[in-house]
């Protein structure tokens, strides 16, 4: 027993000497994004001696959220978890988290909120304007276009409106390319952002911000019409469907097949790395004759779980503050394509002439801030939103496959989605 | 006219030749037994007749037709296998009628033939049973029945009795003999048991190492073995083979006596008794002659005891002489 006791006491000494408070941080970043995130965390750890943030990758967004839920139920939750925007309502009403604004106030860590880009913050505030989670990686959809294919098709001006985009798409196919336009994250871009930009409701009760009894409303004529128009493009390949999320659509663009590619601005670095042609980025198209609202954001925020000591929460607060610093924001933005979410970071970049050299990086910021967010372009706050997105994916796939009309599919999506909402409302007391 | 004619038949597995160009002619209605120790090529020869093994070279004719390239079903033969090879998922009736159904024979005719065969073999009460519900002897009968219903001119038997116990084997042996007499079919029968060969055969073909050693009626082979191997293989107990002054002398145990009386031309040897095996009606006396084993079969109880030195006698004409190197009989005619 004696040697063992000695070893134990040695270990104890070692631990005390190494007594940084450990902050566990579960995230869903992979590949280049994971490296960028780890670099950021390393900077924080190097900047002070009190806390040590440990980043742990938990797969994709869905998997990370599930891991968090399972961990919380098993009382093994991390301090911080990265959750995508559609999980916001789930997290908010979970009772498992401390609103980030409360946590910062408790720990007396001050953050200058006025410096933050408002549409980003507003997506994650509750009814009373309290910030629930800390925006981490935020993006907005933009339009990537292949300059070579545009030139070949004789397109002089980058399309601003959908009507121009349809025409450009036809011209691209006519010039011999196998694909006019491809879209990633289609529920987010073709339904959620399309609605926001045209100031159309996605759901009642201010897109759900007004309470859990909201109903889906996104089968508006304009949305239906656009989807219908795209469906008609399937035949001559002026519109092509490649699969869910980003990768299949982006591949179709970067290997030079598609003229236009609508997807998150977070794909900028991947497009840059993957394409061997000249390309540009522009705002999402809007319907001719309308005045476009701001687009809405996508991405993820950091949530603080309950159940930790004040000391640990203080570490969380310090880390969050660190993330908002101008240098952190600039590094993150440059390495990933996610938006800088503070005005000072944006201004500094602009002053440095970064956007002159990298105009594509500014497109999403300008689009996001071009108007003051309306109640319909502020964001969407729904329970069971992941399931609703799945339903929308499914129904849109039926449209592209030609087994349902745009109207029928979107009506069905609304009906099915409403069931999900009703179920969710029952679980919230 | 011959039923089966085999010319220079050779079987090779790769480089390994197991049957070395044998010739054999089998007459209609003849019962021919191929006998020899395991590995002598007898089964292989039978399987080449059946068409289950390819012929490496040589020729086989059945009913004056060269069958080398004919499928088994076109050779007009029936075969009984050592392990019966009954179809386990079919009833006895289905087993018996399978071949006939394949011939598209009329239902009535099938029934008639199956009934006939079943009566001959005493299977009438077992027709609806499956092979799994039958005893070994019953399965053997079904296997034979399957051959009988086909009514082919040639039956091939591949060690059909070796899976049965001794008593059943004797019984079935008699039945096969009766069957042959009744059906008048040409039978080629393979066995390693010389008793079966002696009792069943019209003619025996003794084989060893892929060569035919001797062909002849059981008595011919018993009386005039062509070589020391045949002499030693046929008979029970086998012929004593001892070497004396550069010659091998063969003496059947039943020909040796303990006294010279009653022998017309006796030859005597000094022998030392080792063991006695009294069998009731007769006694086997195991002795050593010039340090070589010699078994003597005497009637009743032998008046000798172990380690006693005695004289044994044999008629001169009952002795057989074989060449020491080739093993060939010297007085063979």
């Amino acid at each position, binding site marked *: 027993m004696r040697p063992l006791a000695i070893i134990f006491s040695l270990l104890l000494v070692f631990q005390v000497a190494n007594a940084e408070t450990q902050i566990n941080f579960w995230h869903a970043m992979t590949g280049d994004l994971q490296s960028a995130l780890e670099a950021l965390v390393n900077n924080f750890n190097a900047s002070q001696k009190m806390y040590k943030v440990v980043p742990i990758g938990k797969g994709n967004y*869905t998997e990370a959220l*599930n891991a968090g*839920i399972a961990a*919380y139920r098993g009382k093994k939750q991390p301090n911080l978890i990265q959750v995508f925007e559609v999980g916001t309502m*789930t997290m908010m*009403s*979970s*009772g*498992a988290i401390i609103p980030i604004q409360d946590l910062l106030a408790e720990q007396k860590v001050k953050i200058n909120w006025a410096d933050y880009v408002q549409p980003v913050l507003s997506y994650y505030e509750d009814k009373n304007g309290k910030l629930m989670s800390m925006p981490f990686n935020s993006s907005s959809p933009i339009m990537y276009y292949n300059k070579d294919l545009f030139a070949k098709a004789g397109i002089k001006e980058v399309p601003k409106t959908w009507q121009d985009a349809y025409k450009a798409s036809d011209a691209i196919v006519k010039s011999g390319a196998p694909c006019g336009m491809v879209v990633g994250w289609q529920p987010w871009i073709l339904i959620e952002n399309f609605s926001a930009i045209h100031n159309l409701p996605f759901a009642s009760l201010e897109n759900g911000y007004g309470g859990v009894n909201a109903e889906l409303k996104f089968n508006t004529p304009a949305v239906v019409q656009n989807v219908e128009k795209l469906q008609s493009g*399937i035949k001559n390949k002026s519109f092509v*469907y*490649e*699969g*869910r999320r980003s990768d*299949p659509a982006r591949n*179709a663009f970067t*290997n030079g097949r598609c003229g236009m590619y609508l997807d998150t601005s977070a794909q900028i670095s991947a497009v840059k790395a993957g394409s061997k042609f000249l390309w540009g980025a522009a705002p999402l198209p809007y319907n001719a004759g309308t005045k476009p609202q701001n687009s809405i954001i996508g991405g993820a925020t950091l949530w603080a779980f309950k159940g930790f000591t004040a000391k640990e929460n203080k570490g969380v607060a310090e880390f969050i503050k660190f993330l908002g610093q101008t240098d952190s924001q600039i590094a993150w933005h440059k390495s990933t394509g996610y938006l800088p979410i503070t005005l000072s970071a944006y201004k500094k970049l602009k002053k440095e002439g970064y956007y002159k050299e990298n105009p594509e990086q500014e497109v999403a910021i300008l689009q996001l801030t071009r108007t003051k967010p309306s109640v319909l372009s502020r964001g969407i706050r729904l329970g*069971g939103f*992941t*399931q609703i997105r*799945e339903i929308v994916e*499914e*129904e*849109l*796939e*039926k449209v*592209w*496959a030609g*087994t*349902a009309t745009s109207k029928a599919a979107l009506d069905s999506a609304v009906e*099915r989605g409403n*069931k*999900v909402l009703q*179920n969710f409302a*029952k*679980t*919230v*007391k | 006219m011959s039923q089966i004619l085999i010319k220079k038949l050779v079987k090779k597995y790769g480089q390994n030749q197991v049957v070395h160009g044998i010739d054999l002619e089998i007459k209609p209605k003849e019962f021919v037994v191929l006998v020899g120790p395991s590995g002598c090529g007898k089964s292989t020869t039978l399987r080449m007749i*059946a*068409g*289950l093994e390819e012929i490496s070279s040589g020729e086989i004719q059945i009913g004056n037709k060269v069958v080398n390239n004919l*499928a*088994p*079903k076109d050779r007009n*033969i029936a*075969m009984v296998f050592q*392990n019966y*090879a*009954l*179809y*386990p*998922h079919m009833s006895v009736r289905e087993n018996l009628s*399978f*071949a006939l159904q*394949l*011939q598209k024979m009329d239902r009535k005719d099938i029934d008639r033939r199956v009934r006939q065969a079943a009566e001959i073999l005493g299977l009438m009460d077992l027709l609806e049973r499956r*092979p*799994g519900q039958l005893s070994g002897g019953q399965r053997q009968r079904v296997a034979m029945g*399957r051959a009988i219903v*086909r009514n082919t001119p040639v039956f091939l038997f591949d060690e059909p009795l070796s899976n049965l116990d001794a008593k059943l084997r004797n019984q079935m042996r008699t039945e096969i003999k009766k069957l042959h007499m009744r059906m008048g079919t040409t039978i080629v029968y393979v066995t390693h048991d010389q008793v079966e060969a002696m009792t069943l055969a019209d003619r025996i073909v003794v084989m060893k190492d892929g060569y035919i050693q001797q062909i002849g009626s059981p008595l011919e082979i018993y009386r005039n073995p062509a070589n020391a191997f045949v002499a030693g293989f046929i008979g029970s107990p086998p012929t004593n083979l001892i070497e004396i002054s550069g010659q091998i002398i063969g003496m059947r145990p039943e020909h040796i006596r303990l006294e010279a009386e009653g022998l017309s031309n006796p030859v005597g040897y000094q022998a030392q008794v080792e063991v006695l095996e009294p069998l009731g009606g007769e006694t086997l006396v195991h002795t050593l002659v010039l340090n070589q084993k010699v078994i003597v079969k005497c009637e009743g109880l032998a008046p000798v005891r172990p380690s006693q030195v005695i004289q044994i006698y044999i008629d001169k004409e009952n002795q057989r002489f074989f060449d020491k190197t080739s093993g060939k009989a010297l007085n063979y005619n």
Partner: protein
Amino acid sequence: MLKRSHYENPILPYLLISPQMLIVILFFLWPAGAALLQAFQISDPFGQGTAFVWFDNFKNLFETLEYRQSFLKTLVFSVSTALLSLLMGLALAALTNRILKIKTVTRTLLIWPYAVAPAMAGMLWLFLFHPTYGVIGHFLVSNGVDWNPVLNGTHAMVMVIIAASWKQISYNFVFFLGGLQAVPRSILEAAAIDGAGPLRRFFVIVLPLLSPTIFFLIVMNLVYAFFDTFGVIHATTEGGPGGATSTLVYKVYSDGFVGQDLGGSAAQSVILMVITVILTIVQFKVVEKKVHYNG
């Protein structure tokens, strides 16, 4: 007569089976019970607000067109997968059985796909079937087939069936080869002499003799297709396009883990549980009745 062992210590037998029982309780009964309870509740993912709703979850399911369609899709998928993998396994085994000494390397290669992780198998076939850069997909497209599993539900189903059965062929192959090698050669020779050609021998003699193996494999393959193909579907189509390949087991996942609808997902798994129980009962009943040929 059943044999009964007698132990000096009456507790000993129970002690001896307790580890196994513990595993059964911990890993089977408890989760199954939890699923059963959850099937009658709706709750938020974090389990903070839970309401008992009796059969609402089941009612919701059967009122949903997608769920009812999923039954049909599962049937098409499972039967096709089982059939394809059984036929391929049998064909390969029959061909291999003709070669007397199959090389160990060859046999190992034939068994290999079984060891491939379902997700990997899925990725492999997804890649092969991709209309632009997949070998098979490209071949189809260049031969005038408008092949597009991302868009066309039937194409997606075909792809998933092939990917799922590919993995199972090895399993069937091993059992079929064993079964074929257990068929005594003399029986086939007897049939050949009786006048049956190779095809008839196969169908009239070999297949009936293989029937216990075939039945066992049918059940195993159906169980595989029903419950074990989640990984393949997840990696290839994610149940799409438009839910065309969303089988029952995939819906359990997508509704429960993606959609966070735990009650509905639990209700679905209870339904799957019932199906498994039925399949198991059928198997035991039929196996009991099955004649043991060489008794």
